[in-house]
């Protein structure tokens, strides 16, 4: 009896000591958005299950990108988990900078990740980052204004319908703009939108030999259509509008339509922030009958930098944060409308979630974007609103600055395309692609 209690005590002590020794403190760099902040608030659940503690470094998207890039390229080891996107993941994975996520547990069910997301976060078939949430882009429109204009939004509209509807909804006297779109310079701002739009016009960034394609007719058609429509029906100063500016305009009832990230749906339908919450409809991003729509694909994902000393704890965190259990945890605390969307197939098989008004349209938008085949003509790159090569961010930022100068009336479309063609070819030549 005595021996048994001694053994029991010894076992308990060794278990406690073992778990205490194993418990790690991991540092996670992340972006400041609603879903990530919600996750920070729920970290106690992870700590109680695993014993690991978490320290958060939350930064604005561009600062985060610079910060984690500096750290991973110098093997700084400041972070055990990094929040990165679809652009960085395949490039960093190919460089051997990320830990492959090829040994996640069976309960995690890696096959449940939406194929489009898994594809965009992999390199050579190996997953390097687990999607925390995914997004595409779609049309958000005012149902009351559409009705007033005597039009009905199709589920899958064309660009010509969108332009016609925008003109019909525009009411300058009442400060209502038929359409609000991104025009702000930056590869992730206006650059992302115009690239996704250009796909539906048959344009592409590069041909199969990595030659820039800005001297082709589809790019000219894209810009002429965009500028023409925005001058007719867009808000004043649209050249400097990004996601937040358009969100603000839409929430204040100053936009008839807004084509942007699917995550915006939860903002514009939230009655606490939006004055038009009860009159918002959703439709697929427009096309031009060429077989490609103008929606993008993006995911914020969690990845482990190679060289971290806490790989085991980091993997446990990723399994917790991107699991179906986590989705259910959020749903139980904050409702189904607030769960991180766009990452798992099972979420869209859940009848509770499918009651959320924008759930089906978000899934349809994600499924209609293919990062491996995003353009009408064949292209050598992966990515819908970007080309997943290291040089793209720099080139696309410069190109988008040229385009924004067109939107602001500072130069012609031809001048901007000529400059874009030259600077892209120069950069690609310097990088050894041509």
């Amino acid at each position, binding site marked *: 009896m005595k021996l048994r209690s001694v053994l029991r005590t010894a076992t308990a002590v060794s278990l406690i000591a073992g778990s205490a020794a194993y418990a790690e403190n991991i540092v996670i760099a992340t972006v400041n*958005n609603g879903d990530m902040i919600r996750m920070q608030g729920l970290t106690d659940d992870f700590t109680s299950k695993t014993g690991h503690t978490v320290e958060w*470094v939350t930064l604005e*998207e561009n600062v985060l990108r610079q910060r984690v890039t500096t750290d991973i390229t110098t093997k*700084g080891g400041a972070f055990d988990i990094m929040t990165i996107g679809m652009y960085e993941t395949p490039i960093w994975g190919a460089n051997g900078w990320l830990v492959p996520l090829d040994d996640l547990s069976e309960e995690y069910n890696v096959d449940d990740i939406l194929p489009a997301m898994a594809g965009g976060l992999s390199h050579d078939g190996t997953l390097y980052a687990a999607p925390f949430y995914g997004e595409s882009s779609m049309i958000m429109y005012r149902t009351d204004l559409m009705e007033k204009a005597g039009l009905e939004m199709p589920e899958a509209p064309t660009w010509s319908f969108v332009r016609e509807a925008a003109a019909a909804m525009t009411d300058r006297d009442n400060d209502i703009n038929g359409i609000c779109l991104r025009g702000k310079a930056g590869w992730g701002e206006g650059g992302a939108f115009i690239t996704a739009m250009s796909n539906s016009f048959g344009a592409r960034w590069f041909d199969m030999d990595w030659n820039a394609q800005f001297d082709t007719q589809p790019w000219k058609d894209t810009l002429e259509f965009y500028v023409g429509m925005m001058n007719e029906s867009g808000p004043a100063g649209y050249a400097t509008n990004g996601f937040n500016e358009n969100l603000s305009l839409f929430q204040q009832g100053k936009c008839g339509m807004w084509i942007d990230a699917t995550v915006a749906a939860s903002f514009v339908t939230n009655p606490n922030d939006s004055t038009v919450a009860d009159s918002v409809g959703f439709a697929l991003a427009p096309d031009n009958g060429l077989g490609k729509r103008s929606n993008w694909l993006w995911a914020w994902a969690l990845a482990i930098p190679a060289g971290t000393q806490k790989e085991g704890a980091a993997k446990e965190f990723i399994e917790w944060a991107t699991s179906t259990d986590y989705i259910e945890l959020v749903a139980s605390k904050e409702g189904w409308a607030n769960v991180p969307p766009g990452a798992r197939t099972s979420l869209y098989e859940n009848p509770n979630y499918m009651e959320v008004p924008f759930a089906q349209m978000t899934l349809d938008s994600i499924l209609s974007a293919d990062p491996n085949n995003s353009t009408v003509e064949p292209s050598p790159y992966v990515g819908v609103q970007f080309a997943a090569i290291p040089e793209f961010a720099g080139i696309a930022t410069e190109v988008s600055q040229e385009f924004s100068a067109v939107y602001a009336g500072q130069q012609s479309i031809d001048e901007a395309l000529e400059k874009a063609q030259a600077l892209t070819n120069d950069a690609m030549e310097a990088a050894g692609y041509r």
Partner: protein
Amino acid sequence: MARAITTQRKTINTLFAWAVGLIIFFPILWIFVLSFKSEGDAIKAPFEVLTSAWTLDSYATVQDRSDYFKHFWNSVTIAVGSTLLGILVAVPAAWSMAFVPSKRTRGILMWMLSTKMLPAVGVLYPIYIGFIKLGLLDTRIGLVIVLMLINLPIIVWMLYTYFKEIPGEILEAARMDGAGLREEVMYVLTPMAVPGIASTLLLNVILAWNEAFWTLNLTAAKAAPLTAFIASYSSPEGLFYAKLSAASVMAIAPILIMGWFSQKQLVRGLTFGAVK
């Protein structure tokens, strides 16, 4: 003879000065106003913002989400530490340049100032790698050293300017009375230059407090100061203006209050020697 100023002219000048002051101060005032609004109200038209309900919700959320005092303490340590270390290095340098100048003094001063013209990002990688090797990444001591080095040219220049105003004969007299170099600097030069040293201290604390490039790039979870605290509330996808404003007010309040109370000292130091 003093120039005669009419009452009308005086009124116009006063109104003009107030208008300029208000324009400069307006962004801070507006941040202050937005910090007491809900996110929904913060994006409304200016008049609607002012007439909407006032709330402390954003402050409560920020306090709940972030460890303000950890960031605050890091800011204090880094700003004060780097300034004191800078003064310690700069006083002897400025003394030698002001009282024992050589042929190259002017050139050295200009060279020191020219280092401020180098874009910081140009040396990010060498410094980052150096920090990794020395184990200084995400440490307060690392930031104290970097910010001291960055602000050193300004500290040396300011102290040099103040020291130049002090007659060399006084120091000579002290030497004739048997004062060594240490006594000369400690008991003669420093007390005479107190206004200048104080304004140098204050200005460099402000510069170090507001520095955002190195403090964001060389920190992670442990040594992050208030600049990182603010950056965590900025988002390109989501309107969090009220929370961002509340975080900004909390970050700038200490330095604003310090500046308010020390403005006389600051102005006196900056104009030290202007009127003879």
